[in-house]
């Protein structure tokens, strides 16, 4: 039944793609696609909540297979919960783009590929959908934008994710060859195969998930895409990469060794901190959001690492809770990042500006989009009681318990990760208070922002749906956490649904906290007194000039100056003076990118050098190539003899 519903949904989605190809209106095609994705999401939800398995299991052979289990179901829910509002938003957004029908068709194909990765049950099907998931959004971006910088970013994206993707192939093919796929067995413990599969999986899936140091493509690619696609790439695609990592670590390598957990903790902590440091110094709205995706993928990865070290130490209950924390954060971040990217797209439409410092006062001018964006900003900053707080609270709790119960190496790694994540959340508060305050509050800082008007109904509906999901997921996190714990064969007990009640915590009673906060706030605002006089802002008697207002760079300057040893920045100031009078001034601040200068640039140079050497082999003469074939054949035969004997 569930399987039939899922197949039906995929069929509807495919019809939606075809409708865009044959000449029909784009909104109809998008509506059909949304219906299809919604149906697939319902099927996923049934599989997730009931814990049932439908369709075929994983198999090593080349026969194609599709199926659903609770883990796949969860990720189908992630896809649907984000994609349906995104498609609703697209009804107004896409027709104004160049080539809207192609964009619609490719977007639908992208969703099909995402669903395919999650539901594929054979290696070839998985890898095919995996590559399509990489290529389709790239094609879409290239159709919409043709500037050289965008082309370069896309080439970089394809290059890094394909090189990293080799890890995916290695991990999956080794697993298939060892008979882990298909049979109900896991990788034999303590063998070199564990090391090979673990590292290949971490690099392969990690490069697609944007984990540091394989992340450099992400903040360049996601911002140049049209906003509805940015939302899907940042919200869903990187999570599907984590799906692969979870499948490898928690299913095929279960129980994974401690060292892999420590590696996940380290990569997660570095990604979280690196991502948010990149975000906080960004002036460009969508680029900032892309950096913050790296941060949140890091937080989720750290939770998964905590789950591995807890599981290896035998603390199964908290291992399951840590696993649930990671997946809950994946779900929450998908929704939050989608609402933020979509409102960034609306702001760009309404104001023509893409820099945070050129917006301002949008909450008053665009009340629907502005309010939804405010919810997203507070949620991603981890403010109680929105969904970002629920999952970050759970991740921090998981790390506290990992520090207590996960032995020495796991414990110390968890304690350090806990402290790093706490600092990360502190920086993200600064970062998103800047974004929210500068873009939504105060006065407009440009003509575009001053003349902004609210966007169309469909674009409003998309962001409002997602903001509503942020509130609901923040109030009822237990609904998701309980089945996630059962997925790890741990009884969920009395976890939820409203709030989270877990052993060894003081509890997160969302309803009680909401009641206290809500009632007290409303009462205090009411008794504040109606007799309010209006006065200008206190500026020590200076004239209140709009040009003199604080910028986002000024707001974060204490942070940048305090930590300039760790994050070196370069300032250049150009002064225009005419007859000794200062007439204009331009200030630019650039932040050194160590990964670019110390890691990727040398690697690129080395690769070019090797390619130069290899060019000698390419003589162009047929005899030489035939000679190579013969040589390779002989070497292989000799190898087969030696190894086979």
């Amino acid at each position, binding site marked *: 039944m569930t399987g039939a519903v899922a197949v039906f949904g995929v069929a509807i989605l495919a019809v939606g793609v075809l409708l865009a190809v044959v000449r029909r209106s784009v909104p109809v095609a998008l509506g059909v696609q949304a219906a299809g994705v919604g149906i697939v999401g319902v099927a996923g939800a049934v599989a997730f909540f009931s814990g049932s398995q439908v369709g075929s299991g994983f198999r090593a052979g080349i026969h194609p297979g599709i199926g659903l289990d609770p883990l796949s179901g969860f990720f189908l829910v992630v896809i649907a919960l984000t994609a349906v509002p995104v498609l609703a938003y697209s009804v107004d957004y896409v027709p104004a783009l160049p080539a809207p029908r192609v964009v619609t068709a490719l977007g639908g194909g992208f969703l099909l590929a995402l669903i395919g990765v999650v539901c594929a049950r054979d290696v070839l099907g998985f890898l095919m959908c995996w590559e399509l998931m990489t290529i389709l959004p790239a094609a879409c971006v290239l159709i919409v934008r043709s500037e050289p910088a965008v082309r370069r970013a896309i080439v970089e994206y394809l290059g890094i994710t394909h090189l990293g993707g080799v890890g995916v192939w290695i991990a999956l093919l080794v697993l298939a060859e060892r008979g882990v796929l298909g049979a109900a067995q896991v990788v034999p413990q303590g063998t070199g195969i564990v090391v090979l599969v673990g590292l290949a999986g971490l690099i392969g899936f990690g490069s697609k998930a944007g984990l540091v140091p394989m992340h450099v493509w992400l903040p360049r690619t996601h911002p140049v895409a049209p906003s509805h696609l940015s939302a899907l790439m940042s919200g869903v695609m990187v999570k599907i990469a984590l799906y692969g990592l979870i499948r490898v670590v928690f299913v095929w390598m279960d129980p994974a060794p401690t060292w892999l957990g420590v590696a996940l903790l380290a990569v997660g902590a570095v990604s979280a901190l690196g991502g948010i440091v990149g975000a906080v110094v960004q002036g460009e709205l969508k680029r900032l959001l892309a950096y913050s995706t790296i941060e949140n993928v890091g937080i989720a990865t750290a939770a998964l690492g905590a789950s591995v070290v807890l599981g290896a130490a035998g603390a199964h209950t908290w291992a399951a809770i840590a696993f649930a924390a990671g997946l809950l954060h994946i779900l929450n971040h998908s929704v939050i990042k989608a609402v933020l990217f979509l409102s960034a797209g609306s702001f760009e439409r309404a104001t023509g500006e893409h820099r945070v410092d050129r917006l301002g006062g949008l909450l008053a001018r665009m009340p629907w989009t502005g309010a939804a964006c405010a919810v997203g900003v507070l949620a991603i900053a981890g403010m109680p009681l929105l969904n970002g707080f629920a999952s970050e609270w759970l991740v921090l709790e998981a790390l506290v318990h990992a520090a207590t119960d996960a032995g020495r190496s796991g414990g110390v790694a968890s304690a350090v990760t806990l402290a790093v994540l706490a600092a990360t959340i502190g920086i993200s508060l600064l970062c998103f208070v800047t974004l929210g305050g500068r873009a939504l509050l105060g006065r407009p800082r440009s003509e575009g922002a001053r003349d902004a008007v609210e966007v169309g109904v469909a674009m409003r509906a998309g962001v409002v749906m997602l903001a509503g999901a942020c509130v609901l997921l923040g109030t009822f996190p237990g609904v998701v956490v309980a089945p996630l714990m059962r997925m790890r064969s741990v009884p969920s007990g009395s976890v939820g649904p409203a709030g989270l009640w877990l052993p060894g915590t003081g509890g997160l009673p969302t309803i009680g906290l909401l009641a206290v906060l809500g009632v007290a706030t409303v009462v205090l605002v009411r008794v504040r007194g109606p007799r309010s006089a209006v006065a200008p802002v206190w*500026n020590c008697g200076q004239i209140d000039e709009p040009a003199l207002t604080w910028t986002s760079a000024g707001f974060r300057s204490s942070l940048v100056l305090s930590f300039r040893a760790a994050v070196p920045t370069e300032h250049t100031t150009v002064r225009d003076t005419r007859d000794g009078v200062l007439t204009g001034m331009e200030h630019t601040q650039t932040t050194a990118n160590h990964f670019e200068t110390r890691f990727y640039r040398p690697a690129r140079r080395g690769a070019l050098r090797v390619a130069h050497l290899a060019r000698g082999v390419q003589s162009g003469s047929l005899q030489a190539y035939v000679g190579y074939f013969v040589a390779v054949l002989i070497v292989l035969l000799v190898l087969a003899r030696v190894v086979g004997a």
Partner: protein
Amino acid sequence: MLSGAVMLIAILAAPLLTGLIQRQKAFFQGRPGAPILQPYRDLRRLWHKQVVDVSGAGIAYVVAPAASAAALLAVLLIVPVAGTAPDFGVGHDALVVVGLLALARCLIALSAWDTTSGFGLMAAGRELTFAVAGEFLLALVVLTAALPAGGTDLPAMWLGAAGSGIWAHPAHWCGLLGMLMVVLVETGRQPIDNPDTHLELTMIHEGPLLEYAGRDLAYLQWSVAARHWAVLALTAGLFLPHPAGVVAGIVVVLAWMLVLTAVLAVVETTVAKMRLLRVPHLVGGVGLVALVGVVSWIFGVAA
């Protein structure tokens, strides 16, 4: 029962702490100083004054004082003063307290963006910068207190720190040092911040408050007092020696809170304000000490 009553009384008694600190500070500085009940007089005065709104400011400006007071109210209902505490429907989790304190900070910073006041924004940016190192430190301090209790349930942590056995662990000493630093950061006292400054350029917590008057300012001043109560009660209950019994525990914890007000007054009299950009280094450095304590616990070091 008794502990619940004390937690509810804290809502009214919190301004007493700031009054006590000011009074003792005046004593150490050789001034007569204002009476201990001066914060209550200030609140009464503000209550009867007119609210003055900043022209052009919107909803964030209006809601921020009330909502941050609400967040602090929830904190007071969470933070216990004994090993048993009634559940007011808000749980007893240490990390929820951290989140609510951050929420109050966030709201005040957003109000500064809403007024676009240069002083407010400069100050809010500084406060959020301190909070980055502050959160790093706070997470590790919570962890040192959570280790003996096996979790972040505050009454259990309170009981875990009771008695004398805990003092055999170096982790507890490191945690105490870290918590004292947290007190300075969260209450905004010297050498981190000077709550008595009247010079806008040096303001940190006070900066965004410049734009408020009347009952809004009363909410904000009560929030500062409530913040004092919460961190002092946590310091006394989680890191200072106290018996495990309810009545004796409450008495000892309240006594420690009085002692801590004296400590704050002495520190504030004798230590000058630090250079702004050095503060995160100091706070982060103390955080590293707390981390050493955590590692020592994990490796089972005990005297």
